[in-house]
């Protein structure tokens, strides 16, 4: 199972993953992108860290 690059968890991958598909790591909430298939490799999807107001 591929690992989340940020927290090392094993996020759930859909049955027929597609390159470029976005998914969220259930544990650390980071947005991931499927970079390649067999084997599925994951990378952090670029998203601006939104300022949460404080």
């Amino acid at each position: 199972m591929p690992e989340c690059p940020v927290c090392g968890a094993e996020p759930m991958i859909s049955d027929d993953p597609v390159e470029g598909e976005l998914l969220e790591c259930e544990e650390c909430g980071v947005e991931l992108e499927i970079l390649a298939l067999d084997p599925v490799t994951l990378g952090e999807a670029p998203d601006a860290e939104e300022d949460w107001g404080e």
Partner: protein
Amino acid sequence: MIGASIAGGSGYAGGELLRLLLGHPDVEVRQITSERFAGRFAHRVHPNLRGVTRLRFCALAELSECDVLFLCLPHGESSRRIDEFRSLAGRIVDLGADFRLRDGADYERFYGRPHPRPELLESFVYGIAELNREALARADLVACAGCNATASILGLLPLYRAGVADSAVIEVKVGSSEAGNRASEGSHHPERSGAMRSYRPTGHRHAAEIRTVLGGDVHFSATAVEMVRGVLATCHVFLNRELDEKALWKIYRGAYADEPFVRIVKERSGIHRYPDPNLLAGANHCDVGFERDPLSNRVVVLSAIDNLMKGAAGQAVQALNVMHGLPESRGLEFPGLHPA
């Protein structure tokens, strides 16, 4: 059915315990004592339980035999009357501080008087299930941990067990219910509302408890803030080696992945990124999070609980479940409210 009674049931911890035990399918609440309110209905003191129970308080002297006796008495009472209580129940769960420490000398230093029964200290099992599950399963005498100690220990345990922590500076922010339901000058609403009170900058009793479990260099402070229930421990841990975020995740997931009540809360976005006690009122969770300081060897660990639940009554019921081989979450399923 487990016949349970509560000695000292008019306080906040006693009331929360009554609420949980009334809702526990395997428990039948026999008696709940209060010298002040003997003869009165429980809901007079615990209004949330109106219509839930017709139980009345009785005097301590009227206590009869039961399977499990929970003690929520003022400091010194449970150690003074422990033999009497042991004659009434096969199992005792003490929510007070008398049997928390392993070393009588520590007790004397922090509570200002010698421990009346130091020889019993060893026979009480410290009530944090995540720490002592096996011992609890065989225990007849349990001493629940202090609320501040519970939050601090659960936050730091994985790092100390992994041997990566050098020292820690802990500051807990706590609510007013921690001081109990007796009114005082300081709890007078016009003075307490909005106050931010550094009521224990150093030398807090809980520090001794935390050191007993974690060992090492632990510095402790407590600040009371505008909150009724809740503890947030902000622990500044200085590591003895280089660890990146992924290694820290591994340590925390390794320790807590399978725990029913400890959740790891660390998100990069959204408005709920780290543990927040506001979400845990009435729930038995301990939420733990961490953040690595890129500029030093410091990791800031955050640990949130409800001082009346995981910090007292919830911990006691969880211990009850472990002691009787019941599913640990039984009677403790309430997930907390949002918004709250």
